[in-house]
Structure formats: C-alpha cells, structure tokens
C-alpha cells in the first residue's frame, strides 16, 4: 500500500493513490497539485549515509581521506530540514554549488537493537524517496558534513508516498534517477550500495537503538550537479515514487539585500 500525508481544506489527511491523483480517507478525490504534501510519515531520527555508492565515492574522491572499506559514514539531521513533495527549497544568493541527492529512504517499523543482518528486514516498515540537498560552498572539515551544508531548512525532501515494505520485494534492485528540468542527470541502482540495508541496520543498531519512525537515508549514486533558482528537480525511484521539488531564491524569503554567503574558499 502507498500512503501520503497531505494538507487539504483546513486539515491534515491520510491519502492513497487514485487514478491520476489521490484519494483522501474521507473519499474526496483530488489532483496532486490541489493539496500540500507533507513528509509521508511521522519522522523520528534522521540518519544519513555519506558515500554509500561506489561510483559516488569515485566522483568525490579528490576530497576524500577515507575509503569505502571503513565504517559507514553516518551523520544525523534535525527535523527543521524536512519538506514534502512539490515543496520549494531555497538556494541562497551567491552560492556556487548546491546539489540534490536522490536516495532510497528506509523507514524503521520496529525497535532495533543489536540486530543481525539476517533479521534486519523485520525492522523495516517501508520506503520513500528522499532528495537530500547539500550546499558545498559551506563545507568545513569539522564534524563533516557540517550542518550548514547538510541541514538546511527544507533541504531534506521526503515523499510523495510511504510504500509498505511488503510491496517492495527487493529494495536492493531499484533504479534511481534524477532529472533537472526534464533532463536526466543522475542514474543509479540500489544494487550498488556499499553498505546495503541489512548491513546498515545491523551496524546502526549495534551502536544505538533504532525506533519506529526513524529513517535511514541510504546515500546517493554519482551524478550530482549544481541546481539553480527556478529549476524543477525530480528524484525518482522505480516502484517507490516520483518526488518533485523546485529551487527558489532569496526573494521568496524576504531578503532585502543579498544574503551573506561567507565560505571557506
């Protein structure tokens, strides 16, 4: 089953796919542009993986001092970064490299602590698509990736649908792609994860208790390019969903003059 959370006509509703749009639990049938899409589940801890696709590691290798043989590169994010389908994400004036990352988001469904890889899938409730933006201008080498790069308001987009795990027979064989204004810029397959979902749940649950609603953003393949104000960025995973986001500028955010954009370069 696919489930969304949307705001419509003064209330928040659970919704399901219907024809070319969606159907609210109360029976109303709507077009996708008629509702405000929220992240499709109550999000707990947001756990993100860096460099979890072999080809993305290669893409960024000039700035790397680790290899994919090391411990998984895990970082955590705050709730303020969350955004739903068809939302708008701000690109501050003056930055030179802001990029999307199309990622399979794995949603935990049952408490996990010291879980063996073989049992890991029992703790997965389902999946959604994530587009996890980064602004590399702000990269500093302290507690990388620092939150100024990776924890932007509206920079972690989730949706449109939460897809039950039972409906995804093999989460390690899903095609991911990103298009910017209709042009394909990123193409990959979840088969190429360095640490697969089983390994990630085993690793994470060995050092912390995972709880229902926690989400693991499993990393992105190569093909990240800069996006500009006005771009429509579509991150899509076959069988999971097609997540649309639009890049907007400072003028939507009440800046009276160009925002300060101090960087370390």
């Amino acid at each position, binding site marked *: 089953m696919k489930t969304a959370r949307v705001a419509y006509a003064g209330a928040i509703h659970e919704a399901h796919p219907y024809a070319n749009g969606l159907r609210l639990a109360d029976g109303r049938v709507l077009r996708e542009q008629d509702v405000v899409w929220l992240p499709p589940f109550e999000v*707990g*801890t947001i*756990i993100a993986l*860096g460099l979890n696709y072999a080809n993305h590691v290669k893409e960024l290798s000039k700035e790397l*001092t*680790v290899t994919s043989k090391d*411990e998984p*590169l*895990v*970082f*955590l*994010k*705050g*709730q*303020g*970064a969350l955004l739903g389908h068809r939302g708008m994400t701000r690109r501050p004036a003056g930055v030179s490299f802001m990029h999307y990352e199309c990622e399979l988001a794995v949603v935990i469904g049952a408490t996990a*602590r*010291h*879980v*063996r890889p073989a*049992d890991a899938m029992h703790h997965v409730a389902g999946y959604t698509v994530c587009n996890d933006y980064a602004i590399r201008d*702000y990269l*500093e*080498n*302290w*507690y*990388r990736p*620092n*939150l*100024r790069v990776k*924890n*932007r*308001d509206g920079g972690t987009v989730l949706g449109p649908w939460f897809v039950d795990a039972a409906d995804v027979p093999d989460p390690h064989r899903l095609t991911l792609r990103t298009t910017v204004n209709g042009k394909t810029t990123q193409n990959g397959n979840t088969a190429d994860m360095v640490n697969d979902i089983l390994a990630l749940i085993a690793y*994470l649950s060995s*050092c*912390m*208790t*995972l*709880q229902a609603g926690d989400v693991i953003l499993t990393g992105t393949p190569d093909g990240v390019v800069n996006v500009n104000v006005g771009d429509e960025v579509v991150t899509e995973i076959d069988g999971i969903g097609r997540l649309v986001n639009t890049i907007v500028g400072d003028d939507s955010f009440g800046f009276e003059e160009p925002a*300060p954009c*101090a*960087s*370390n370069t």
Partner: protein
Amino acid sequence: MQTPRPLSFDFAPWRLSGTVYGTLLNDPAALAALGDAVHAAPYKAPPIAPVLYVKPRNTLARNGASTAVPASATALEIGASLGIVIGRATGRISMQDALSHIAGWTLVGDLSVPHGSFYRPSVRFKALDGSCLLGPRVVPVDAISDPDALTLEVATSGSGVCSFTTSGMQRRVAQLIQDVSAFMTLSAGDVLMLGVKAGAPQAKAGQSFSIDCAQIGNLQGHLVAQTPEVVA
C-alpha cells in the same frame, strides 16, 4: 507595539518536542588545544560557522539515568553544557532579539566516547543510548540574568570536582543563536547546547557524576557496563 506571543513551554516533566543540537569547539581553549593541527589536513582551517551535531532521541535521558558504556570504550567523556531551550521559531535572528526566542535554560550532560579527531567522527561516539541527560528542570529565561557567566561544577566519583564557567566562549549565547539561525531555523522545544569546555572529565562504568549549577540545579547520572548482548 504588539504584545509578544507567549512562549510555548513545557514544564517539568517537560516534553522535549524538538531536536537537541550540540555545539562543538565553542571554547577557544578547546580549539587551541589542537595547536597547529587546526591548519593541517584534514581540517585545513579553523571553523568559520558554528559546528553543530545532533543528539538523536535515543540519547535523551532524564536526571538520574544510567548510561551504558560500550564494551569498546574504557570511559566516557562527561561533557557539561548550558542547554538553551528554544521558545519560538528562531530563523535569521539578530543577537539583539535572541533572548526573546529562548524559553529557558537547562543543563545538558553530553556523554561521548572520547575521540581525538573532529573531522568525521563515528556516530558511535556521540549517539549512544542515554548519552544526553537533560535537567533537572528548565528554568525560565528571566531567572538567569547572565547566561554567559554561570559556573558549572562537574563531579565524578572517580576524579573529584572540575569547575567550568560559561564565560569566555567564542560565541556567547546571543551570538550563537544569531549565527546558527542564519543557516537553520530552530523550533520551540529544540535545545541548543552552548558548548562543552575544554578539559571535560571522564568516568568509567560503575562511577557516577553530577553537573551542578546554582541557578539551574543538579543533574546526576550513572555509568554502567554494557550488558553483553546476545545478538537477537
């Protein structure tokens, strides 16, 4: 002038509805302790913007909690920080307006596996279950006249008492709120740590600790050995 909107505030036992953010290296002495390494790889330069980290919900614990020390660690660092409890949405706020966005103050016992590298530390060091003690209460913002001049005494049953002050930080409370809110919006119920001072003590399994601040109270915790887990 409009009457300020009342701050949302959950009285103890309060509901921490938000995210707890730690602030790294806000004590100039902590950065200075790294010496020339600050300019060498992998850091290459001292930090510019505030360096934050997230203490996820599995870490949150109450006053008096017991925290398990992982078998792989000989001790945990007992980081003591002032916790700034955010009272309303705080985005792009100037120093002058910072105080009006704060609901109150609490103490944070930020426990971590000691680690020498701040480049890309493992989640294992900072996200241990029960490694973020909050309490013993939240005091209202106006109960403390100068949050940048508090004394925090950290006592461990192993190594006596260390005294720290919240003064002398690279970013004082108001400056920190301004500089963090410049790049991310904090929400009511979020807690932002002012930062742990250099020289935080360590404690081992079997030992207890307390963090005491006259204006806030006494926050206590205990370290226990992690029970060997049969992998389920």
